[in-house]
């Protein structure tokens, strides 16, 4: 029994059903296939799908309350822009941009890495970084499998320890090249690459699940060639050119015996027997009939979005809720977001044509990411990938104007006409490390449409992230200056307070973190709940920190490995080792 029909559920169901194990997936949304969101011309509707969030979680039914510190009163965000969970078969994996990194080799052992490099006292006391209890080497075969299943396009930078020219020299070692050649470079990427090279940096094409060619995956599922239409993130790909679970996994799974996905099934809580330390199943509401069902299960897997995984554990009283004052408990701990910033550049005589782009058409440098550079003399940990990430030129949001442009009127229109096709941004996608005071719990006042407490977010950009962002954004500016643009936008790092009205990324992590010790983690290194051996949790909610990369790659690897682990568990129940 799996809660949430997104990427993780699809991947682990693939592993399980291949071994003849029955899987039932409960998904609150609908199947997008054949809908207006998944065909032309209605797919290309920025207002409907992007502005009005037509493929996203419906905030009317369930939102999150937010505050910046536990000493403040929370308020429900009545229309969220900051991050956008999906709804429907495929989950957020159906509306993602397709940027598909492996994280740094040392990410799963990040605390050990910092301590061994800079000393035991280098990690601040209020930063509960912790190792994952697993290693990159253990996950590598699953990264490889995911990349072949989703037909990733990219250029290897490190094949079995040998650095490859043109790829990312900081890449974790991989067994071979990407399944497909990189996407075409954008004009912005060409400008960025030349400037980065003059600074001695090593730019490379970002890894993408937008298919650079026609692709047949190991399961016999096909991807078409990407059309560079600029409607990836927030949209469903009608050309079947974006590696997504609703394309590559669920149609196949539905043909497999023993697989069932039930849509419009809203899981309300886990039925948990605290004495037996077992989950007996889940309660869900059939959103079509209004009937509430008790669904028994031998094994329950939470594979929903970060927020939902955490919320269901809290609603069901499984595990101890995190209490930052008493410094006890684990559920809701280590909630992280992402620390982004960017600088706009304007070139009168270069045709950037931002509408010629795909979700993953990025040209990247990784020198200033995570611990790829020496932090010994710096007042922060972490860093950012820096890229010319031109993913679209959609006209409502995808425009830039030089500083000083008025907000309306003839001069405003002139600036639109002059700069739309001649500008882009260089972005820093920064890490966000855990802070003792950033966490999730249940809101005391506000409820969702089904009468259950909302999840409450207590989050702000803390000192470490603010300092990191200022430093990294200066690096962004150096690259921008080396491009000698006609005009450069303001250079400002990310500062608090966290703003629910501004989209950064949908990369929220933590809340049900993994680790080697029950005292400091919710699930084991095999994603098994410490307080219920037949309950498993998978998703970015298990990350103890967020890295300077998009989160999908390791999440997919963990889900595939979990599928194999669950097959072992079903054969011989017990603590997985």
């Amino acid at each position, binding site marked *: 029994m799996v809660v949430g029909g997104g990427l993780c559920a699809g991947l682990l169901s693939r592993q399980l059903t291949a071994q003849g194990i029955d899987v039932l997936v409960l998904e609150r949304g609908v199947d997008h296939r054949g809908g207006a969101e998944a065909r032309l011309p209605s797919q290309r509707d920025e207002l409907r799908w992007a502005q009005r969030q037509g493929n996203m979680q419906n*905030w009317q039914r369930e939102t999150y309350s937010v505050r910046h510190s536990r000493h403040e009163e929370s*308020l429900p965000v009545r229309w969220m822009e900051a991050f956008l969970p999906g709804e429907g078969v495929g989950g957020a994996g159906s509306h993602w941009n397709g940027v598909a990194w492996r994280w740094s080799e040392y990410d799963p052992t990040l605390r050990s890495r910092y301590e061994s490099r800079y000393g035991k006292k280098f990690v601040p006391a209020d930063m509960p970084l912790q190792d994952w209890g697993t290693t990159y080497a253990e996950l590598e075969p699953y990264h490889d499998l995911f990349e072949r299943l989703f037909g990733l396009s990219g250029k290897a930078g490190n094949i079995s320890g040998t650095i490859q020219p043109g790829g990312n020299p900081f890449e974790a070692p991989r067994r071979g090249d990407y399944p497909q050649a990189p996407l075409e470079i954008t004009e912005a990427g060409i400008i960025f690459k030349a400037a980065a090279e003059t600074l001695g940096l090593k730019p490379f094409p970002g890894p993408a699940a937008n298919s650079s060619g026609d692709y047949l995956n190991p399961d016999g599922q096909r991807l078409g060639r990407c059309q560079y239409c600029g409607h990836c993130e927030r949209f469903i790909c009608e050309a079947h050119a974006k590696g997504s679970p609703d394309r590559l996994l669920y149609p196949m799974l539905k043909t497999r015996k023993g697989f069932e996905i039930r849509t419009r099934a809203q899981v309300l809580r886990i039925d948990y027997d605290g004495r037996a330390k077992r989950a007996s199943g889940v309660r869900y509401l059939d959103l079509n009939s209004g009937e509430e069902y008790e669904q028994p299960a031998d094994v329950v897997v939470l594979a929903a979005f970060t927020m939902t995984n955490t919320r269901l554990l809290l609603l069901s009283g499984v595990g101890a809720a995190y209490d930052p004052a008493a410094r006890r408990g684990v559920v809701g701990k280590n909630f992280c977001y992402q620390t982004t910033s960017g600088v706009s550049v304007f070139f009168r005589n270069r045709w950037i044509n931002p509408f010629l782009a795909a979700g993953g058409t990025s040209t990247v440098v990784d020198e200033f990411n995570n611990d790829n550079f020496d932090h010994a003399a710096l007042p922060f940990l972490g860093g950012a990938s820096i890229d010319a990430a031109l993913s679209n030129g959609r006209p409502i949001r995808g425009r830039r104007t030089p500083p000083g442009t008025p907000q309306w009127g003839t001069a405003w229109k002139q600036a639109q006409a002059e700069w739309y096709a001649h500008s882009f941004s260089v972005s820093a996608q920064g890490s966000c490390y855990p802070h003792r005071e950033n966490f999730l719990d249940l809101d005391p006042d506000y409820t969702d449409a089904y009468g259950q407490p909302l999840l409450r977010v207590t989050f702000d950009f803390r000192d470490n992230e603010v300092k990191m962002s200022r430093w990294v954004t200066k690096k962004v500016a150096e690259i921008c200056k080396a491009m000698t643009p006609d005009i450069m936008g303001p250079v400002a790092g990310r500062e608090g307070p966290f703003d629910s009205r501004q989209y950064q990324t949908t990369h929220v992590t933590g809340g049900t973190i993994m680790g080697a010790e029950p005292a400091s983690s919710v699930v084991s290194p095999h994603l098994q709940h410490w307080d219920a051996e037949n309950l498993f949790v998978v998703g970015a909610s298990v990350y103890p920190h967020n890295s300077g990369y998009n989160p999908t790659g390791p999440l997919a690897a963990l889900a595939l490995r979990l599928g194999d682990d669950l097959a072992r568990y079903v054969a011989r129940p017990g603590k997985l080792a």
Partner: protein
Amino acid sequence: MSRMVDSKKQADRRNFLLQAGLAGVASLAPAEHSGASTAGAAAAASGAAVVGAAAANPGADTYLSLGPDEAAFIEALVNVMCPADELSPSGVDCGLAVYIDRQLAGPYGKGDGRYQRGPFRQGKPQLGLQLPLTPEQFCKAGIAAVDAACVRDRGAPFAALGAAQADAVLVDIAGGRVADERLSLTSWFNDIVYPLFVEACFADPMYGGNRNAVFWKMIGYPGLPANHAIDMVRYRGKPYPGAGSPKSIGDFA
């Protein structure tokens, strides 16, 4: 009011919607709306003030949400924010007022997808709007409040101000310099009106704004179908030929 008149009105609306939505050619405002103005000569000459436009405007009854005074306000506003110039016709002639009206009348205006449960408390702006109002209700309450402030401070409602004065009012509101006892007019403008204005300009023309894809032409966005696999290489770093004749969803429907 007889049923015949009502059904005639509805038929007109349907026809209008068909024209505005699919052909994108219906003009709601008279071609020369400056003539409808009873405001000062300067405002009339600028074409930016449209006092009484709703009353004098034969298409005004096709507004679905806005009442006559509200329509006059929004028409004046979009004409200030998008004056007729060499880049585009006036805001009204670009369909911007129709767009805003349709959005207010539709799911967005009714608060679709917004969390609307109480209690309602005010807090930091970063936590977003916390009003027991739908966007449509907030928009209309703000219109009334701005009009009251304009009458108080400048002796006339917004739609009766000259273009320069109306522009100054909007600058002041956006900058937080116009107070109302019950509403944040800054929030009204920055959270509701301004986003609607930008969408009116740049959303697909089938929604009533961006008439004839005038804003897409202005910036060089080619629109649909956006199957650019070959263009991506052929026009990388070069002017894109299709940018001069953008296609909308309606062109393919």
